[in-house]
């Protein structure tokens, strides 16, 4: 053993030293040390549990957020659809009203045209009659001699019977 550089006395002393250390350690420091280790282990487990809880809560919050976003989107879509429907309805009503008003205007315009046409025809007729009677008056004045007038008078008297 001395050939390989190992001192037996030193080795034994080291071994005794080690045993003494183990015994002393076991007697004095093992318990608190183990307690510290156990505490650390427990704390570590608690930290892990807490981390899991936080993670779960985080997931739940994320899910709630996604759900709320989806709900809001659904409500927004619904509102948009309703607004679109109302706008469409209002548009149809306005178009119908415009159509009614334009038809009424056309009807009134046609009635007015007809009325003016009738008035014009009446006026034309009156002018024609007036012109004709004036012409006849003129012709009769020039054409009727005194003898003819006497004959007209006789005819009137005969018809009076």
């Amino acid at each position: 053993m001395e050939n390989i550089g190992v001192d037996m006395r030193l080795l034994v002393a080291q071994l005794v030293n080690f045993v003494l250390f183990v015994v002393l350690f076991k007697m004095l420091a093992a318990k608190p040390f183990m307690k510290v280790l156990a505490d650390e282990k427990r704390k570590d487990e608690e930290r892990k549990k807490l981390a899991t809880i936080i993670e779960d809560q985080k997931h739940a919050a994320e899910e709630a957020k996604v759900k709320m976003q989806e709900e809001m989107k659904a409500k927004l879509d619904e509102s948009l659809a309703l607004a679109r429907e109302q706008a469409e309805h209002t548009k149809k009503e306005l178009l119908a009203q415009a159509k009614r008003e334009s038809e009424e205007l056309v009807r009134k315009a046609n009635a007015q045209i007809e009325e003016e046409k009738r008035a014009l025809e009446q006026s034309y007729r009156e002018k024609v009659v007036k012109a004709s009677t004036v012409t006849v008056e003129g012709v009769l004045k020039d054409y009727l001699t005194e003898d003819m007038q006497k004959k007209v008078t006789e005819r009137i008297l005969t018809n009076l019977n």
Partner: protein
Amino acid sequence: MKLDPALKQQLKNQLERELKEARRVVKLTLAYTPSEEEVKAIMARFPQFAGGRVVVEKDESIISGFIVSCGSKVIDLSIKSQLNTIR
């Protein structure tokens, strides 16, 4: 204004006389100058104007026929009135 009753009566009498006189005048309007026989023949057809004084008037504007009037009564048998009726 109060009138004297005698004056009022006189005015009333005068008005009645004039009205009576106007009623008695019969106006005959023709487009030519008729003879006496023609006037008599015409007036014979209107006994309601008998007894009145006939005044003959020539008016070429009536064209032909005649108009008999006495006071407010007018009988218009002229061609002109017939043409006006057509108008």
